[in-house]
């Protein structure tokens, strides 16, 4: 028997565990244990999970023609392939993104190999020169970030998908359970040494626990960015003209978002908004009610059908950002540890691609050298 321990119960941890079990190159006597503080309240549960690299992200590596940008695009394409036939991922046609002048010269790369165009379907440019009135269907977040600018002269339209996260995560857990070779264990981990000692039989330990992963790896380049969504009861909102951050979930509710607010790295500076976890780590934060009201108000401005609808649930998560990019590699100091964290706001989009990278690393750890 060969055992691998995966730390983290969010989309990265579960996908990694499933990839290792499904990978045809890995022997079928592999057993996987997934350890997580919780499988029900992860950062992934709060995600709107909507398939574009976020134009206002503090570290959008898609945007740049860099090695990590190219790597992200490769992972995203692999993930897209894997998620095509999953029922909790739905295509959203006719998504429109409008470009204030600041964005046009900003970091979101629209065309070319490492760009938005490469990651969505039916990409086309829109000419808005003759359009009048408000910005119809502008993404809430872009409006917030660029409020007060001139209305945009151009835009783009494309088809993309989004994922209903609670259902998708439950689906992943179901697949793991059905494999008969995986155990999901609710267990908090405080150090890599502790896990290495407790699971000395394991051939590898994969660190996929988001912000906590950074704490375990003592990685100073990790930082958190608040993501918050509001779930609104709006049964008639089935086809949406403004799908950006107003995402019909297919069950009579819509997820309304969002934000991506980087937190200061110093624990003191953000004491009022963030609860520091054990040993300087991060903990799931409290909801920001004022922010929730703003999010809802902005969404209602663009989507009047949401006015007066009851709020069913609010979610908040800390997106685990890493400067400059996600870390998927072996730990030079802990030979059995493979890191897979720091995916920022694109965890779902990168999930299968980076899980495959982990599988490659695991194979390399046991492979023969030329």
């Amino acid at each position: 028997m060969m055992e691998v321990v995966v730390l983290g119960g969010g989309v990265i941890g579960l996908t990694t565990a499933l990839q290792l079990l499904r990978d045809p190159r890995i022997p079928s006597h592999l057993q996987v244990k997934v350890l997580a503080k919780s499988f029900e309240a992860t950062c992934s549960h709060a995600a709107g999970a909507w398939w574009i690299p976020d134009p206002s992200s503090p570290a959008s590596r898609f945007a740049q023609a860099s090695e990590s940008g190219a790597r992200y695009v490769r992972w995203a394409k692999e993930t897209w392939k894997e998620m095509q036939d999953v029922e909790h991922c739905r295509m959203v046609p006719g998504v429109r993104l409008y470009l204030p002048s600041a964005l046009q010269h900003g970091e979101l790369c629209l065309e070319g190999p490492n760009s938005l165009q490469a990651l969505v379907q039916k990409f086309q440019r829109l000419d808005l020169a003759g359009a009048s009135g408000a910005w119809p269907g502008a993404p809430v977040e872009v409006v917030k970030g660029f409020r007060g600018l001139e209305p945009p002269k151009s835009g783009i339209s494309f088809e993309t998908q989004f994922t209903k996260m609670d259902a998708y995560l439950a689906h992943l857990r179901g697949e793991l359970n059905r494999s008969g070779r995986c155990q999901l264990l609710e267990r908090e981990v405080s150090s890599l040494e502790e896990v290495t000692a407790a699971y000395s039989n394991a051939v590898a330990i994969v660190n996929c626990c988001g912000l906590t992963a950074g704490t375990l790896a003592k990685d100073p380049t990790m930082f958190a960015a608040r993501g918050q969504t509001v779930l609104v009861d709006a049964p008639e909102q089935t086809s949406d003209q403004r799908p950006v951050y107003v995402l019909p979930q297919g069950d009579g509710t819509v997820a309304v978002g969002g934000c991506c607010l980087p937190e200061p790295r110093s624990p003191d500076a953000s004491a009022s908004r963030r609860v520091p976890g054990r040993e300087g780590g991060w903990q799931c934060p409290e909801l920001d009610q004022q922010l929730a009201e703003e999010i809802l108000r902005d969404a209602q401005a663009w989507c009047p059908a949401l006015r007066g609808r009851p709020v069913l649930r609010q979610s908040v998560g800390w997106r685990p950002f890493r400067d400059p990019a996600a870390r998927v590699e072996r730990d030079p100091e802990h030979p059995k540890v493979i890191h897979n964290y720091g995916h920022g706001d694109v965890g779902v989009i990168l999930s299968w691609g980076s899980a495959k990278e982990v599988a490659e690393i695991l194979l390399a750890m046991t492979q023969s050298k030329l």
Partner: protein
Amino acid sequence: MARGQQLATTVATRGEVTDPLAEAIRLIREGTVRYDDAALYALRDGLLRQDQTRLGQLYAELDQDVEAIQCLRKGHEVDPYNLDSLLALGVSCTNELDQLLALRFLRTWIENHEEYQALLEGVELPREYEYEAWRRQVTELFQRAAEASPNDADVFVALGVMENINRCLAARCQALARACRLRPNDHTVWNKLGATLANSGKSEQAVVAYHQGLELKPNYARSWSNMAIAHANLGKHKDAARLYLSSLVLNPDATHIWNFLQSAVLNMNMDSQYALEATEAWLSEPSQTTV
């Protein structure tokens, strides 16, 4: 005798050692190394102290690719046209899963090779981070080189490495088998064929290839490690542990091998179970039911 390699490494990596031969003699007197191979290595190393390429190849033989890459890159900086360092870099970077870098070195090998540089005429350099474009182009270049020179072992070694990057099972084994036929006295080529077979799930055949390489060079640490991995893959953990030890005697600095040894030892009591499973699987095959 094997400690000679270790000595060469020690001597060359210790900055403070000014006279490698004197250091070699001192270590031999201490009994740290044996005389025969050690003196030879130290001498050679003394002469080639600045030859980082040779040292890099030595590290690769000792199963330490990270160190090998460091030395080979230094060698490459000193002599950018050296084909040996380029090919060795392609191999070690492939082992370390740095495929894009491996592809760059392999392409540069063609670029610098008198016979093959003509293949690059009209072929544009792929864009910097477009891995797929790199992979396709370099594969094609080596395929054409192999067609043009069916008797150049180096080309088939490089093509084999390339097909390892492509994970093309049949093609990589074919290329390296051809390289072995062309250069049957090169232990490193046999090892590459063995490793490729093992990585294709053919551990039993891999063992045969490793044996050939080790016959040519009994103190080839990398092949001992690979032989151990092949046995572990076959579920023979006791043999694997013994073979890991053989490799560690030659090079105790290969830290990953200590980890493998640990796993093999922890799995040793499973050997009988594996044997039983293998036998039962054989028994349950339809043609065997009458046994």
